[in-house]
């Protein structure tokens, strides 16, 4: 065994040991949350990638920052002590989901302008709220994620969302497939496509808010799209793609956490870099194989 891999083994063991350490409960919670959240991420990410709405998802996640700022403001200035930043994030993200959905249906031509505006205005509102709130906040933990913020309460929230999304996908699978593949045809079959589309965006909003604590607002969109994009290379059926994305997302999250623990890198960037480089390797490998096949 070379010294390098021996070192890796030690840090891997350290990571596994740390998961058992009661003093490092946050690490175990972070692993549980990110692995459980992968179920929602894999499913919703597949819809986002195939329906090509990652731009909308980006706007939703960034506007959630407005809610975080708003909740902090109400919490400190009006003593709403029960109000957590995540509550504000949920409200803003859902609002943004409904607005972007309506805009993308009704204002076809100027869609990107309006969505870009929601993206930036949400961020701006959050920063102004934080300016108005007395005291100092480490906003980078919201923007780039901070696993120290994860509590056992988050584990239950993620579990609940997983159940909601699994149930919705099982019940509405055929309709969501039809709405994503050919909306016009779905309308002709008597389906209220607007309702399903907004519903899908709201589920996207809830999913995004869940992992904001792990990877942060700025990078969460990559975690939604990259696993599905990698999965899409290996399969041609929507539900296969969902299962593959879930597995890839779990893999990226767990290995990112381990990498972050053993190197001291921030967790969010570590996860995203692993996801991004895997995606690059996979698409280049497929390009290479295709060329190779053509030559031989």
């Amino acid at each position, binding site marked *: 065994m070379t010294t390098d891999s021996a070192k890796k083994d030690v840090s891997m063991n350290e990571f596994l040991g740390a998961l058992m350490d009661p003093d490092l409960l946050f690490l175990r919670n972070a692993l549980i949350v990110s692995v459980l959240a992968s179920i929602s991420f894999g499913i919703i990410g597949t819809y986002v990638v195939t329906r090509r709405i990652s731009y909308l998802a980006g706007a939703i996640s960034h506007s959630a920052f407005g809610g975080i700022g708003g909740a902090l403001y109400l919490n400190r200035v009006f003593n709403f002590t029960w109000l957590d930043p995540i509550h504000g994030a949920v409200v803003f993200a859902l609002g943004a989901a409904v607005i972007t959905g309506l805009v993308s249906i009704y204002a076809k031509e100027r869609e990107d302008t309006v969505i870009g505006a929601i993206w930036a205005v949400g961020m701006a509102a959050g920063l102004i709220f934080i300016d108005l709130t007395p005291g100092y906040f480490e906003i980078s933990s919201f923007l780039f994620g901070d696993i120290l913020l994860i509590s056992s309460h988050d584990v239950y929230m993620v579990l609940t969302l997983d159940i909601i999304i699994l149930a919705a996908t099982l019940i509405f699978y*055929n309709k969501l497939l039809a709405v994503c593949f050919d909306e016009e045809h779905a309308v002709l079959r008597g389906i209220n496509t607007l309702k399903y589309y907004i519903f899908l965006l709201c589920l996207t909003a809830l999913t995004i808010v869940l992992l904001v604590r792990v990877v942060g607002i700025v990078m969460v969109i990559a975690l939604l799209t990259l696993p599905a994009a990698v999965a899409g290379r290996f399969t*041609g*059926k929507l539900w296969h793609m969902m299962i593959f994305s879930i597995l890839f997302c779990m893999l990226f999250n767990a290995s990112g956490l381990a990498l972050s623990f053993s190197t001291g890198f921030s967790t969010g960037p570590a996860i995203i870099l692993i996801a991004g480089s895997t995606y690059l390797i996979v698409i280049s490998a497929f390009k290479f194989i295709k060329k190779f096949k053509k030559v031989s």
Partner: protein
Amino acid sequence: MGDFATIVGPNGGGKTTLLQLLLGLLKPDSGRIELLGHPPEKSRLNIGYMPQYVKLDMQFPVSVMDVVLMGRLSSQLWGRYSRQDRNAAEDALNEVRISDYKSRNFSELSGGQKQRVLIARALCSRPKVLILDEPTSNIDEETEHIFFEILEKLNARMTILLVSHDLGFVSQKVKSVICVNREVVMHPTTKMNGTIIKEIYGSEFEMIRHDHRFSEKGCFHE
């Protein structure tokens, strides 16, 4: 036996608008549209529709069978497909002669095969009217021939309305021609001649004769 009509006209003349009005996807500013005796919103469950090729994402991860089954969707909350739905989809696939491909991925098929899958989806709901938007835009001549045989067979039990900007497509199978360029004029194929085409397109066109069945009767509206 239903009519077999082609909507022709230049780009921007309003062919797609006319279709969307017929399907109830657009509302008319004035006047009333009836299809099979009801407004389009009500009767469109009895219409099979094949959209323009370019409107769909051809990379979408979906199997051929799943695309065809979309023709059996209903607005019911619980959306599982029954055995009956699957049988109808199999029948439709047989009818367009593409049942060998039912478990393949839609994205792997050729343009002509994809178009036949989309017709199967339209047939799956057992429609009374079949509406096809630019069905020949992506297929070669040989496939076009097969395509026409399929349409002729279907025409025995349903009305077919087909949009094309390709005048050559107005073949001997077509019974009437609906010309759309800002206004709508309907001709039986017997009346089609150089002057009418010139009127629609505003320029000279070469007339292609599809001889032997020119005398076929078509409905005529002034």
